[in-house]
């Protein structure tokens, strides 16, 4: 690369530099499977994660059907399940409670660790961070490849666990002991091993992203000139880097509990049969919960931060004006990152928490809602004064705002432990977080896919079908998740394999299960245009007419389309902030970051 730093390298590598040079790869394997190019790795991540997302949704479709029709056989897929998983799991095509639990646990695990995070940080982060900061690749390309391989094999382990005797993990995505130890299936062990793979993958990936951002920014790309997307990835990567290791430690301990018969998480005096009958005891089930939520709370901000980053890019570009309060956004994201490490126990209010600890955690929880409010306010105010183009990415981005708001606001009654008494572990919680992750993060990811598709493939996705996809998804997401708040308020509990028919609930609450099922079917139908559009557009979409079809300012749009090996065809130097749209006096309504100032 011939930028200003090239000078430092010109002679050191003149001779015998074969193995550490950054050559364009050749051959199928190095091109597509073991590629070290950040763009290829990003695409690998993206495609794999999309398939997992579809799979996770498939599991959920079956669960929603079972909830709406407890005790009835699953149509079409039922007999298939019985064949694949055996008759004690899906006898007569009916999803047994055990199978329901493993679908639930795996839906959560897959969506969080195999779909959304890999898509948001693995795919978008990998593909965009280097090109947005003007780097030719990630700082450690080989580690990047290893990170994808670990992710892929972790996914394979998780997937295989469905077919081991006893079935996949059944103790929820939270895997609370002693239940996780008491369930007689190897699936639980597979889950732990899979998690160790995924954690290692995340660690490599996040260290790589941080190092890239610190080291490889192009000349002139100062911290405060970085697109907000890069900031969001930076903070998210730190969360992954620092929050995951304690869960890895916990995972190792739970694995030891399973394999060596230790009892880190098993108290003295358990009266359960089987393998647990003669444990030594002395452990603490709450220890696991603390270590788990120490990861899992920061993890939820890993789910939302990249989404906010994507949304910011799209909003700035499609309102044709700068983001309102860029600095405030950056500081809020950093604050969100810091505080997210000290709120974890708000998931554990009902575990017998003392007043002091509860006060601490509900205070921090309220504090963390403030930067979220600020970020959302900035994004909302950014719309004012714009000239808004409602293309598909922008539609998803605008819809994200109120959807995330519903999810975020319903987090507040959960954050106060006094109201959480009534709402804990009900469908209210399910509604809360799905509003943030599904019509929230998933919408942001859809927006990102439509937005950057032209850069990655050189072709546009079809706008008409994009809009069909958008309206279908928006309507049905709400049909699915809105009723959950009523169900939760009415007292319906989550993780009920029969949808709560055993509890004395008002009949209309149970009836909503049917409505939600129709919503889920509608949502599935609404994805069909997307999937067809996605694959069809790769070869048949409308060709882009310029390298910068959206007339955006950030460096990712200053590359050739699609970017070749090394990303840029000329040295990048940055002269201004990321969102110089509609600058008064400029002849176009956008001023790319690398455009030389006049004088």
């Amino acid at each position, binding site marked *: 690369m011939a930028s200003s730093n090239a000078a430092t390298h010109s002679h*050191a590598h003149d001779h015998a530099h074969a193995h550490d*040079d950054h050559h364009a790869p050749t051959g199928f394997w190095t091109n597509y499977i073991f590629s070290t190019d950040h763009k290829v790795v990003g695409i690998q991540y993206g495609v794999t994660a999309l398939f997992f997302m579809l799979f996770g949704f498939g599991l959920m479709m079956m669960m929603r059907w079972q909830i709406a029709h407890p005790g009835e056989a699953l149509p079409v897929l039922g007999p298939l399940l019985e064949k694949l998983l055996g008759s004690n799991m899906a006898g007569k095509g009916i999803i047994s409670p055990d199978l329901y639990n493993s679908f639930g646990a795996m839906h959560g695990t897959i969506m969080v660790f195999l779909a959304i995070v890999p898509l948001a940080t693995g795919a978008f982060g990998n593909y965009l961070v280097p090109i947005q900061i003007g780097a*030719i690749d990630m700082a450690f390309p080989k580690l990047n490849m290893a990170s994808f391989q670990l992710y892929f094999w972790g996914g394979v382990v998780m997937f295989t666990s469905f077919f081991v005797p006893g079935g996949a993990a059944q103790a929820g995505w939270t895997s609370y002991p002693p239940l996780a130890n008491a369930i007689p299936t190897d699936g639980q062990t597979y889950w732990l091993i899979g998690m160790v793979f995924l954690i290692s993958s995340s660690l490599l990936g996040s260290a790589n992203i941080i*190092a890239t951002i610190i080291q490889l920014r192009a000349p002139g790309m100062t911290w405060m000139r970085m697109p907000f997307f890069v900031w969001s990835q930076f903070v998210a990567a730190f969360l992954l880097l620092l929050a995951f*290791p304690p869960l890895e*430690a916990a995972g190792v301990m739970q694995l030891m509990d399973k394999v060596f*018969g230790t009892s*880190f998480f098993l108290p003295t005096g358990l009266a359960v049969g089987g393998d647990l009958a003669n444990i*030594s005891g002395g452990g603490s089930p709450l220890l696991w919960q603390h270590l788990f939520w120490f990861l899992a709370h920061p993890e939820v901000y890993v789910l939302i931060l990249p989404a906010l980053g994507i949304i910011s890019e799209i909003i700035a570009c499609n309102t044709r004006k700068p983001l309102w309060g860029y600095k405030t956004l950056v500081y809020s994201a950093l604050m969100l990152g810091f505080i997210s490490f000290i709120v974890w126990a708000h998931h554990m209010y009902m575990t017998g928490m003392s007043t002091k600890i509860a006060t601490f955690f509900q205070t921090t929880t309220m504090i963390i809602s403030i930067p979220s409010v600020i970020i959302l306010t900035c994004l909302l105010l950014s719309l004012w004064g714009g000239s808004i183009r409602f293309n598909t990415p922008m539609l998803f981005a605008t819809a994200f705002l109120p959807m995330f708001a519903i999810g975020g606001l319903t987090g507040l009654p959960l954050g106060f432990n006094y109201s959480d008494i009534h709402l804990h572990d009900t469908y209210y919680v399910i509604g809360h977080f799905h509003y943030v992750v599904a019509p929230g993060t998933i919408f942001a990811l859809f927006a990102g896919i439509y937005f950057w598709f032209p850069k990655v493939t050189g072709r546009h996705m079809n706008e008409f079908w994009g809009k069909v996809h958008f309206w279908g998804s928006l309507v049905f997401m709400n049909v699915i998740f809105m009723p959950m708040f009523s169900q939760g308020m009415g007292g319906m509990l989550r993780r009920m394999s029969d949808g709560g028919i055993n509890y004395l609930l008002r009949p209309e609450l149970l009836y909503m299960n049917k409505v939600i099922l129709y919503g889920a079917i509608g949502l599935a139908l609404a994805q069909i245009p997307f999937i067809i559009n996605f694959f069809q557009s790769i070869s048949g979409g409308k060709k882009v007419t310029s390298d910068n079809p959206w007339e955006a300012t950030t460096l990712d749009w200053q590359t050739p389309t699609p970017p070749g090996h090394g990303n840029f065809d000329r040295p990048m130097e940055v002269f201004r902030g990321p969102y110089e749209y509609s600058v008064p006096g400029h002849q176009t309504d956008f001023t790319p970051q690398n455009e030389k100032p006049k004088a």
Partner: protein
Amino acid sequence: MQIPYTSKPRPDTGLYNAKVGLWLFLASEVMLFGGLFSAYILLRTGHEGPWPRGWLSVPIGTFNTMVLISSSISATMAWAACKMGQFNRFKMFHGITLLLAILFLGVKSFEYRDKLTHYWVETKSGVVADGHLVKKTDTEVVLHGVRTSDAAVLYDRTSADYKKLHHEEITIPTADIKKISNYQPKLNIYLSLYWCITGLHALHLIGGILVFGYLWGPGSSMWNRDRERFTNRIEIAGLYWHFVDLVWVFVFPVLYLF
């Protein structure tokens, strides 16, 4: 095309890429061992009944601590030698680090083996015996160690009561045995922590030895090709080594002394 700052530091951060990467890795490692140590604290403070003390040999632990600290010093010397361009000196110090690391693991495996032959036996008659296995047949178990009817004494082995116990050959008929177990992880929560923490630490050492071995052997050919980059590699390998050493400095008092 070349990724910048692979060996020269970036002027504004003052770091080359690998060093940033290593610091980040170490930050995550801090959290990993931090998680384990918090687990230790939580389990110990929440523990009912006596906590095992003095179950590990302090002299052996001290010796191993010395070994690791020396290896850290030699690792630094090796890097300094690289900086001064003295390849042979580097080879010597780096080799010493490697040998010390292996010595540490040797001592550790001796300790592990000792734990696996150390038995804890509770009898139906209420006596608890504890010692090394001498022999085990179908009808009886012979230990060399101590016995008492007050198991609490066996927990605190730094106490005077314990020191009063008489070491002898103890024969226990199989029929009288209520519970027999060597010092494997599941015997009690203390040993679980011991095996888990030292085991993970040992894995870190093994990883370090592989890297150090590579840099001493085949990897050292880079010295002729790109001296600066090789020196950097030695530096970050050394940083990692200091971290592993530092972890041990916490492990040692926590498990051996307190």
